[in-house]
């Protein structure tokens, strides 16, 4: 494997990571928004169109794509929340949005319809992607320590209790949905300026599978569960020679197996709690129980 292809591999996987983290946000609230492929498509097409046809600087186009995707997610989720869709219906609604968008893009001449958008100027480089991914990861680390992050966990635990404490439930949810969609859009913008050629069918059901399975595999309780899942099922198989052909089947089989044995994925609240406990015991033999029992439910 040459250095060039290695670089390409890492870049693409890091872009996937950003998209996966965007996809993770709704799920961290136990909301089944599976429209991520649509948000990525919005970001990819918006920013690619802006740099290619309107000569907008790359950074600005990237921001525009992110904002457009966030707006898309906001609208989809606002509609879904308005008619109080839950579980099953929510999944179908968001999936229909993504698929309908794909079909519409397939028919819009301005963005090349099904032939795809070609000749996108190359702007994305590995350092840019790596820096963005690092910022996003840091952002998640910070988010977990803010009020918004705490509310997210509260909504996941019981979204009917949350409004009783005077928290604007819908607004909080929509903000997090929009951030998630925006991250998807950001990933889309980076993607389109790296591969330089995008087709609507790149953002179909397959993209959802590529993001969804590793995420659930890693566990939804913490964002680094999603990161770990992507690392194990995305990064590693790419580096093993001859495995690329079987990557999807391996991913699916591994996910199925983990969910049967461990329905909450690899990293769960319990894992964290017990790890913390073990770590604290080793560090301080007298054991500080107050530290280890928080968020252990």
């Amino acid at each position, binding site marked *: 494997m040459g250095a060039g292809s290695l670089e390409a591999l890492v870049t693409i996987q890091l872009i996937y990571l950003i998209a996966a983290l965007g996809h993770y946000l709704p*799920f961290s609230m*136990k909301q*089944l928004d*599976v429209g991520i492929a649509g948000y990525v498509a919005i970001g990819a097409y918006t920013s690619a169109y802006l740099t290619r046809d309107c000569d907008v600087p790359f950074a600005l186009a990237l921001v525009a794509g992110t904002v457009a995707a966030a707006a898309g997610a906001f609208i989809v989720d606002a*509609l879904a929340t308005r*008619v*109080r*869709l*839950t*579980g*099953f*219906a929510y*999944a*179908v*609604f968001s*999936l*229909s*949005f993504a*698929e*309908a968008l794909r*079909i*519409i893009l*397939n*028919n819009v001449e301005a963005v090349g*319809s*099904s032939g795809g958008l070609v000749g996108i100027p190359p702007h994305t480089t590995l350092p840019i992607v790596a820096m963005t991914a690092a910022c996003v990861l840091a952002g998640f680390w910070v988010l977990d320590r803010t009020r918004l992050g705490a509310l997210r966990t509260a909504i996941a635990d019981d979204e*009917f209790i949350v409004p009783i404490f005077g928290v604007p439930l819908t607004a909080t949810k929509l903000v997090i949905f929009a951030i998630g969609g925006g991250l998807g859009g950001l990933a889309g913008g980076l993607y389109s300026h790296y591969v330089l050629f995008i087709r609507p069918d790149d953002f179909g*059901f397959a993209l959802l*599978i590529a993001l*969804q*399975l590793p995420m*659930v595999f890693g566990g*939804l309780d913490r964002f680094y569960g999603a990161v770990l899942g992507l690392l194990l099922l995305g990064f590693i198989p790419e580096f093993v020679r001859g495995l690329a*052909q*079987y990557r*999807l*089947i391996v*991913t*699916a*089989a591994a*996910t*199925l197996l983990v*969910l*049967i044995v461990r*329905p909450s994925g690899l990293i769960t609240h319990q894992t964290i709690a017990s790890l913390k406990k073990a770590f604290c015991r080793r560090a301080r033999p007298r054991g500080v129980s107050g530290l280890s029992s928080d968020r252990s439910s």
Partner: protein
Amino acid sequence: MTVFLQQVVNGLVIGSSYALVAVGFTLIFGVLRIVYLAHGAVLVAGAYIGLFALMWFGSLLAALVVGTIGAAILGLLVEFVALRPVREQNHLIALVTTISFATIVQEALRLSVQGGQAISYPASIGSVLLQTNIGGVRLHVTVGQVAVIVVALVLVVALTFIIQRTWVGRSIRAVADSPLIASMLGIRVNVISAQTVALASALAGAAGVLLGLTIPAIDPYIGEHLQFKALAIVLFGGLGSIPGAVIGGLLLGFVEAMAAGYLATSYRDLFAFVTMVVILFFRPSGLLGRRLVERV
């Protein structure tokens, strides 16, 4: 006029196969109440199994029977592997396990049969062209297309009979109403769940074989789009409603055939998704169904 009548016939053929897929799909949704997304993969597997049976035995009937039984067995496997272990979990887990299972089936087919190339059913009795004159209008129909309509009709009637008149059907309906009460009355929910998925998968297998007869070639991914359309039909007709699924299937078939005849073909696939969004928005219970949105 010729175009119109030809599209009516085409719509009936497409609609019948849609109805066949959607009827099984709606049964699973109505009984298990999960986001089940392995139906398309089971259908494709049925189509491939049917293709091999057709090449082996050289008989259309054998293909249909083997494809149906093969798909039913695969359905049982889905239940045992992807549904039963995660029954107590939330919607997301079943969604992901069924997608994983579907991916495994699709990938296995892609890797094992002709490197994933599209493959056509051999010319057989199914592709014999019938030409009929109705009021001076010349219509083209193949034997395969007639078979689609007839078999779909027979299977839907048979399924309705099973659901309405047999003890298996009564148990299925009981579990659909309330798994808890049904289990209190001595119905084994796991067994009923397996029977439901097997029954629905058998219909999907038959639909797969019939689809193979009517479209130029099959590949491991034809089930995916069909599954989304079936999802739209199920939402349209109402979760668990067999008449709703039949009406919805035929309607979508006609709408798509008309769109293909008179509008740009590429917009054809949009109807299903627009229908889904509109239905979820304005009438979440579907045309003939119960409430979809769970009340708290």
